[in-house]
């Protein structure tokens, strides 16, 4: 089997990324496949990119812009979690 090399784009292993480890993939030209030397993931570029897309789901506000005023006002509304409706029986 051929020596693995860094691809034209230096992708990181998407499965290792999920457990917060940066680990560069190598590219096997014969198999037209990227593979990880740490975990057991292997796949093509499309698989990498689709898993990156899943990774980004941890950031629902990734494209949201918060100004200073919005940050200061955030969570200051009355209906914060656990705020009691009032004293006495409910």
């Amino acid at each position, binding site marked *: 089997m051929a020596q693995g*090399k*860094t691809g034209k*784009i*230096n*992708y*990181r292993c998407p499965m290792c*990324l999920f457990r*917060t*480890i*940066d*680990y*560069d993939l*190598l590219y096997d030209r014969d198999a037209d496949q990227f593979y990880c030397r*740490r975990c057991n993931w292997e796949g093509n570029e499309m698989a990498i990119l689709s898993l*990156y897309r899943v*990774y*980004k789901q*941890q*950031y*629902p*506000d*990734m*494209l*949201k*812009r*918060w*100004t*200073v005023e919005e*940050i*200061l006002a*955030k*969570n*200051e509304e009355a209906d*914060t*979690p*656990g*705020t*009691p409706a*009032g*004293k*006495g*029986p*409910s």
Partner: protein
Amino acid sequence: MDKFILSVVHRPELMPEYINTDAQAGKTEELGGTEVVGESLDIFRLQQDIAHANGIKCTIQMTYASLYNDEAIQLAKDYHEKYGDEIAHTFLGVQCDRFRETYGSKELAMWLFPWDLKVRVVRDSFERFKEVFGFYPTSTGSYFMDAELINFIKAEYPMVKTAVAACFEEGPKVFRHTNNTWYTLLDGGPWTAWVPSKACSHAIAENADDDSGIVAVPHLSRDLLGVMDNPGDMFGTHPQNIIRGLAYEDDRLPFMYNLVDQYQAIKRYNKGYSYNLVYVGPGWMGKAGRWECPYRILKKSYEDFMAYYGQLKRQGKVTDMTMTEFADWYRANKAVNEPICALWKDTIFGTKNQCFWYADSKFRIQIDLKLGGAITDIRPYASKLKRPCGAGTSANQDASYPFIVQSRYRGGPFTHYAGEGAIKSAKLRFGGEEVDLSACRSTGRYEEGPGWRKLIVRPVTVEFQHLKVQVETSYTFHENQGTIDIGRKIVGLSDPSAKVEVDEFITACWGTREYPEDLTGCTLAVIDRNGTRNAIDYAYRCREHAAADAAAVEAVIPMVQTRIRMTPKSGPCKGYYEEGYSFAPNLKIGLCRELGLDEELVTVFAIERAN
């Protein structure tokens, strides 16, 4: 005061960490290769040009290698003359052919050198700096500088006023992120500028006698919520770090601006002041791109970032200062033991999560509001632990300031099967049921007054089978006193005649990382109102003791020279200790009292140095 200050630092590094590490491509190691040097200086010039185009003054940190490179020296002189940039010094970027020949070492981390080499490198590079520029630098830096190194530099070169002395929360999480190969094990320091203690650089100085003589700044300004359960190297004022965390789409990185704006927002908790440091090494803007990201986006992200600061500057919302200018400003406007404080809000994970950070000369405290306002990290600065690091020291690479509570490294509110994790929280008991407040998500609000800062956790509702209880928690930090008043007030009861028991407790340990450390030699004690003291030496034997009317409960952790004590502010309390065992390697102390509607249990939690 209304002051948001920015320092932008660049370094003409001649062998950037991320350009020359190209093992997979099979390149031979050639230090100072023409291509690498040329590209690195190009990047340095590019970074400088981008900052200057936006009206931002820079600090140029000259590396050991660049002090022997005529082009880099001339660039620094030209930038200083034209833009007023500070020519400064750094211990990063030491490696070059000359360094290897002189010192015979491949070590790249100044804080990890053996002491004799640290001394040589300081003297050689400072004298070389003087030879090249005609003056000694007033600012320097590294990823970390221990107190011994700072004290030595101040003794030999007293003109030094400031240093990049740590990377905030670069520790086990970053180590793991880098496939266990990036030896910045530096958890436990402040997140913004501070005056370090002479005894330990992580800790804020006690007073003028303890003042190390410099103003320390962290390598970057980081997201204080993002770093709690993630490596900080994806959440800082470093656009390419944000790209590393994949928190971007195409060339858009709104989080980058949100981070700057949140640092503006925390002026609210710091008497009108806040600080940003931006320090992007040239290796992050290489022509070959960085990981998946092409050069075009790396470059644009830096342009956009500097453009935003430039816009803020034009609006009068930020003041750019060199590191030395900032140190002078800090000395003129802040106390040696200035407390720092932040109520930080999530701007990226799409939650209402918040955390609260407080630090002064006695401790650094992290409170997680989604855990009902439980304390999830405590670094006992009161003990001013001497922890020199580097080859030949007992700490060696582990330069972190130890914790006595760390809820992510040591379990926190959730354990598998047995025992309790490290946390400071409270439990409510009624009718044979028990609920930990860490199960109740909340948010916080902030108050302050002369000598105190206060976090009020918005009330949470605990639901027992036959009773609903609403509890408000508050933390009052007495600045530089080493004490926190912790209040638990019953503000609502579905049966106003009911009484619930509140158990205010801490489950503590010690360490710098995930694995347990030996607790043998710790002591636990309950002192009752008559002064009778029941104490044990920790031996993993699961012993317990309680006194119906306790004056105090305390634990001593001699490995970190720390005593923790809880006392009721007023009124009677049951006090107890629980020893723990090997599968639950913690020590626990607590105070309990029954409370009715509108009643409050206030305990004083003290952290002291134990000799």
